[in-house]
């Protein structure tokens, strides 16, 4: 144990609240030191429960959690030395910012001067040096968020947990804070476990993302792989925009396969999450990987489609077409001369590479 690959380790962890339903099922994750891991998923997917078990506020029903090689199931939260940023900041309203930051240091019985120095440094890190004597409620949401971050870091924990910390901020502030958190992480190299249901947030900040659904991790990988190479239909659909074509596997050829739709179109795809001929499958395809009226012959897939709707979005035109029996098929057409000629009701040719269309399980 204690290898750098598993600073935090979930080992076959189960959790049930009522003895009937498992909200977390057989969870196995290894988080290396210094990693920024995001748990992403819809609400009720088990991600927050997982975080709470790590923080010590919930006890696993089965399995064991290790922190730096030590089993921590039986260690109470106040002895774990884990920092945490809560959804609504949980700043103590009866204490000033300074007192809030000093709180974890005082319980650790640091000297007064030492505390002062660390509080100052932490406030400096979040650029709030001038706000130390304010009460939390006198601060804006973004400022409160930063104080909460500083408080979680001020006692130099081994690990920081963040539970949807940006949920209460408006969009612009949220994006700004995403970068700030990312930069602080890069600066001090601390291990972060972050929970969110916002995929942009996850993609922006994380080293790795664990996509949760139904109490299980669907896929855990770096943002680009998660986006480019979703391993099942849920991940494909949950991360980014995605076109889905339904059909049955007609033939398999090594890493490739052919999926035949109900209408008879044959889509050449990567064989990702189908096993044998005859399996029902969803073919997943990113809108930006589809070309309209391309003359390039390197595209293995090419189908006739009908333009249903054009939505002008400035830099590109969101084009809804009907193809392969799916009338919700989206293509992003750059707002170039070519795109400007599209008309609703026109017939067009859609082309994409076999390596961009992924044959996944049927959802």
């Amino acid at each position, binding site marked *: 144990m204690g290898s750098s690959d598993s600073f935090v380790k979930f080992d076959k962890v189960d959790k049930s609240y009522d003895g009937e339903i498992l909200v977390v099922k057989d969870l196995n994750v290894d988080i290396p030191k210094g990693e920024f891991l995001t748990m992403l998923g819809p609400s009720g997917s088990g991600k927050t429960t997982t975080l709470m078990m790590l*923080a*010590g*506020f919930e006890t696993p029903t089965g399995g064991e959690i290790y922190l730096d090689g030590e089993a921590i199931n039986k260690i*109470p*939260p*106040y*002895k774990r*030395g*884990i*920092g*945490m940023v*809560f*959804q*609504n900041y*949980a*700043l*103590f*309203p*009866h204490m000033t910012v300074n007192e809030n930051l000093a*709180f*974890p240091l005082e*319980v*650790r019985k640091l000297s007064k001067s030492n505390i002062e120095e660390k509080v100052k440094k932490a406030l400096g890190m979040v650029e709030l040096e001038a706000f130390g004597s304010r009460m939390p409620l006198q601060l804006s949401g973004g400022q409160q968020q930063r104080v909460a971050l500083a*408080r979680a870091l001020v*006692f130099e924990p081994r690990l920081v947990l963040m539970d949807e910390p940006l949920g209460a901020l408006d969009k612009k502030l949220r994006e700004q804070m995403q970068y700030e958190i990312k930069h602080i992480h890069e600066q001090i190299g601390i291990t972060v476990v972050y929970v969110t249901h916002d995929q942009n947030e996850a993609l922006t900040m994380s080293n790795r993302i664990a996509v949760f659904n139904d109490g299980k991790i669907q896929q855990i990988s770096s943002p680009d792989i998660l986006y480019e190479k979703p391993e099942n239909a849920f991940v494909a659909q949950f991360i980014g925009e995605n076109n889905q074509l339904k059909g049955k596997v007609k033939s398999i050829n090594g890493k490739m396969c052919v999926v035949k739709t109900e209408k008879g179109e044959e889509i050449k795809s990567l064989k990702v999450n189908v096993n044998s001929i005859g399996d029902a499958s969803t073919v997943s395809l990113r809108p930006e990987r589809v070309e309209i009226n391309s003359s390039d012959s390197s595209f293995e897939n090419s189908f006739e489609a009908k333009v249903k709707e054009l939505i002008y979005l400035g830099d590109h035109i969101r084009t809804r077409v009907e193809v392969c029996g799916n009338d919700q098929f989206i293509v992003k057409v750059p707002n170039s001369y070519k795109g400007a000629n599209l008309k609703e009701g026109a017939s067009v040719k859609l082309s994409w590479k076999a390596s961009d269309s992924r044959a996944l399980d049927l959802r």
Partner: protein
Amino acid sequence: MNQTASEPILTTDGIPLKVSLQKSERKNKIRAFLLVAPLLVFILVTFLIPIADMLVRSIDDRQINTVFPKTFEVYKKWDQQGLPSEELYETMFFEVKNSEGYDIGKASTRMNYSKSGWKSLLKKSKRKFKKIEEGPYKEQMIAAEKRWGDIDYWKALGVMVDPTTMGYYLNAVDLKFDSNKEIIRQKENRRIYNHTWIKTFKISFLVMFFCLILGYPISYLLATLPLKYSNLLMICVLLPFWTSLLVRTVAWMVMLQQKGVLNNLLVMSHVIADENRFQLMYNQTAVVIVMTQILLPFMVLPLYSVMKTIPPTYMRAALNLGASPLHAFWKVYMPNSVPGISAGCMLVFIIAIGYYITPELVGGKDGQMVGNWIAYHLKTTLNWGLCASLGAILLAVMTVLYWAYNKIVGIENIKLG
């Protein structure tokens, strides 16, 4: 720069902006006033006027002056040495003899407060004076009722000459006027009110304290338990509210008396010997126990409503930051529940201080509070002046406590929900 600043800003019509603003605001103000007017009238009639009436009654001594106006004029000349002159006897004689209706009866009730015996003296005199036809009156009055020759009765009149009196307030703190209007202490065996005041505050404080000790954990549980359990618990807390005060008090009597349930259990389980049963009823202990139970909901409800608003993440955050549960509670949870504690304590103390039925029933020999004396004088002696002064002192004490509280804690920290 200075010039422009001193000139009033005008609207486009040329009317000064301030005037225009006032005009437009006036309508809103009138509307706002009309909206609160019914409540204002209600409060005025049911609250402020009675309080004003009480304050007036506590110093009002006019009635007696309308019955003996001449006597009191003559009285002022008396040097209080030896029996008064024939002149004083004479005016008194005629004002008693010629008095009509019930004024003399009311006056005699008043006079009896300062010296016991006036009541029957006047009653009997009025009957006997009918037979006295002509003066000199002094000897004939003394012959008719020998108390007319007792200088103490005459001296007792001295404190009634003024139309206002502080006598009721003095009475309420075991002081009184002597015949020279000097303030002296009440006779030792009649000193009852100071003792009662101290007892009243002590009992109220103890009740408040025990309500807090007992109510805090319950409220915490109520605020943190899942709804289905907390509702059940809430019903248990509120159950006393749905039972008559008398029923509850009597139930406690059954529980606590010497041959009651609790003592029987203790004897049966050999914790105490049969002859050493605890005296838990008919004393201050009983009053504190029973009132604590009765007033507990008044502590729990404000506490609960405040605790409900304290996010559970505060405790989690504190634990997460390394504080032990006890430390986290003391430093984080408790300070956030202070508004509830304040509200609960104020509420319980204010209600307790004026309590009357429970002390009456279970107080026995030393559990009587100020409210019991107010009730006694209100109903039995009809000494409403004393009632009013006792009530006014209660009011003053509460106001002072409220003021002190505001200074120390700040009234904005009170929260009932």
